[in-house]
C-alpha cells in the first residue's frame, strides 16, 4: 500500500457542480445585506437597530403564523422572510415608530407572499408592498426624517421610535433642534433638491457625501458605495442577475441626463439622480427580486430601463420626492407582460414565416 496523496484527483462523471439551493442564495443575500444594516446602525444608532430587529421579527413571526394556520411545515428556515424584513427596515426612515414597522412587516409577508403561495410565488417585492402600505396608511410618519450621526445615537432612541401601538408618534422637531449643531433641517437630499429649504431653491447635496453615505435618508439607502460593494458580491457569486440593476441605473441615468441637458438649472445632474435616495438599494436588492422580475434576456433589460425611467419621471414630476418604490412595483406588475412579449426564438424554428411547399 502506498500512502502518497494523489496529485491528480480523478472523479467520475458528472462534473457539473450542484446549483446553489434556494436556502444558500437567500443566506448569501442576507450576508450581503448585513454590512448595509451595520452601516445603518452606525449612522442612526439604536433606533435603526431596533427598527431592523422589529421588521425582521415581524416578518418571521408572520410567516410562521400563517404556516401554522394552514397546517403546513414552517418555511422560516429558508431565510427569505429575513431578507424581506431587512430590506423593509432599510427602506424606512430611521425614527419610524416600531409598531408601524411591525404592521409593515406583517402586510409585507401576509399580503404579498403568503397569500400568493409563499416563496417563489410573490407577484410583487414583499418589502416594497409593506412599505407602500405604511406609506398610504401613515403618510406623516414615513416622511419624518432625522439627521444622521446624531450625538448620543448609541445611548438614546429617536423619540418617535418607541411610540406605543396605535398612538400618534411624538414630534421629533424638538429633539432634532437639541442635537443638531448646524441648523439641520431634517430633509433628505432628494427633498432638498425638489422642494428647497426656504432660503435656497433646489439645494444639491455634494455627490461625495451621497456616495459614502453621509446624509439623512431612509435607514439603509444612504451609502451608494456600500450598496454597490454588497451587490457586487452577489453578482460575482452569480446569485443575482446583474443586468437588472445595470439596466435600471442606465435607464435612470439616461432619462435624467436628457432632462439635465434640456435645462441644467431646473433638473438635477444625472449623477445626483443615481446616488440619491433609494435608487441604488432599489436597483441592486429590490428590482432584482428573482420572482417578481422577468426571466428572458431581453425582457430583463426592458424591465430595468422601464423602472429607471419611471423613477426619474416620478421624482421630477410626481408629488413625492422619491419614486423608486412605485417604479419597482410598477415594473413588477409589468414583468409577466414583458416576459410574454420577449420570449426567445426556439432554436431550430425559423425567423421568417415558413413558406408553404
Amino acid at each position, binding site marked *: 500500500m502506498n500512502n502518497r496523496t494523489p496529485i491528480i484527483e480523478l472523479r467520475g462523471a458528472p462534473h457539473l457542480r450542484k446549483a446553489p439551493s434556494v436556502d444558500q442564495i437567500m443566506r448569501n443575500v442576507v450576508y450581503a445585506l448585513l454590512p448595509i444594516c451595520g452601516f445603518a446602525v452606525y449612522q442612526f444608532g439604536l433606533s435603526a437597530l431596533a427598527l431592523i430587529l422589529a421588521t425582521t421579527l415581524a416578518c418571521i413571526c408572520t410567516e410562521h403564523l400563517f404556516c401554522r394556520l394552514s397546517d403546513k411545515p414552517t418555511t422560516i428556515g429558508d431565510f427569505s422572510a429575513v431578507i424581506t424584513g431587512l430590506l423593509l427596515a432599510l427602506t424606512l426612515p430611521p425614527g419610524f415608530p416600531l409598531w408601524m414597522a411591525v404592521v409593515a412587516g406583517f402586510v409585507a409577508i401576509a399580503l404579498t407572499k403568503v*397569500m400568493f403561495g409563499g416563496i417563489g410565488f410573490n407577484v410583487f417585492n414583499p418589502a416594497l408592498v409593506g412599505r407602500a402600505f405604511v406609506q398610504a396608511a401613515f403618510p406623516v410618519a414615513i416622511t419624518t426624517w432625522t439627521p444622521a450621526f446624531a450625538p448620543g445615537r448609541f445611548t438614546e432612541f429617536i423619540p418617535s421610535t418607541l411610540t406605543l401601538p396605535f398612538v*400618534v408618534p411624538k414630534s421629533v422637531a424638538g429633539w432634532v433642534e437639541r442635537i443638531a449643531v448646524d441648523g439641520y433641517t431634517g430633509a433628505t437630499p432628494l427633498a432638498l433638491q425638489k422642494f428647497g429649504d426656504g432660503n435656497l431653491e433646489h439645494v444639491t447635496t455634494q455627490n461625495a457625501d451621497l456616495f459614502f453615505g453621509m446624509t439623512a435618508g431612509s435607514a439603509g439607502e444612504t451609502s451608494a458605495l456600500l450598496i454597490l460593494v454588497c451587490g457586487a458580491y452577489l453578482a460575482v457569486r452569480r446569485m443575482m442577475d446583474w443586468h437588472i440593476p445595470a439596466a435600471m441605473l442606465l435607464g435612470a441615468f439616461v432619462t435624467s441626463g436628457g432632462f439635465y441637458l434640456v435645462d441644467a438649472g431646473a433638473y438635477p445632474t444625472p449623477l445626483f439622480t443615481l446616488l440619491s435616495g433609494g435608487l441604488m438599494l432599489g436597483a441592486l436588492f429590490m428590482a432584482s427580486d428573482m420572482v417578481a422580475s422577468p426571466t428572458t434576456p431581453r425582457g430583463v433589460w426592458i424591465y430595468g430601463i422601464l423602472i429607471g425611467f419611471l423613477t426619474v419621471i416620478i421624482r421630477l414630476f410626481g408629488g413625492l420626492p422619491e419614486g423608486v418604490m412605485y417604479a419597482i412595483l410598477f415594473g413588477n406588475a409589468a414583468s409577466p407582460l414583458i416576459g410574454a412579449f420577449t420570449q426567445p426564438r426556439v432554436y431550430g424554428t425559423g425567423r421568417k414565416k415558413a413558406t408553404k411547399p
Partner: protein
Amino acid sequence: MADLHHKPTPITMDTFLRGIWKENPVFVMLLGLCPALAVTNTTMNAIGMGLATLFVLVCSSALVSLLRSVIPKQVRIASYIVIIATFVTIVDYAIHAISLELYNALGAFIQLIVANCVILGRAESYASKNRVTKSVVNAFGIGIGFTFALLCLGTVREVLGSGTILGYSLFGESFQPWVVMVLPPGGFFVIGAWLLLFSWLKERKQRKILKQEETARATG
C-alpha cells in the same frame, strides 16, 4: 311554471338563515361588492346602506313573487328593474327626508341600489319561482346578511381609519388613524381579510372532520 306549484316546500328556519351565513351575499356569493366597498368607510354609512338595500330587497321580492304568473318571460328582467327602481325611488326620498347627512354620504350609491346584483339575483332566482311569504322570508334573510357584511366592513374600517365607532371616539386624541383604511384600497384590504378568515374557518372545520374520519378508520 305550473309544475312548480304542485308541492310547495314548507318554509323552514333555513329559508331565513341561509341568507345570513351559508349564502351570505357578500362573503359567500360575492355579489353587491360595489356598495360593499364604496360606502363602508363608516359604520353609519354601512348601516344606512344595509337597511336601504334590505327594504328594497324585501319589497321587490314580494312584488315580483306576487306578479310572477303575470310577467311575460321575455320581458321579465325589464319588469324586475322597474319594480326595483320604484322601491329605490321610495328609499331615496325617504333617506333624503330623514337624514340629509346620510343622504350626502351615500351619494349616488342609493340610486345605484337598482343595479345591485343581490336584488336582481333574488328576483330572478328566488322570488319568481316561490310563493310570496317564502320569498319575503328569504329576501329578509339575505338583506340581514348583506347588512351584517356591510357592518363587518364598516366597523373595521371606521375603527382603524378614524379611531371612532358610530362617530364616538374610542381611543382618545392620541390615536393614529390609518389613512388608507377610509380610502378605497382599505375596503379591498378589509374584505380580503374577512374572506380569508371565513374560508380559513371553513377549511379548518373540514380538516377536523377529515382527521376524525381517519382516526375512526384507524381505530375501527
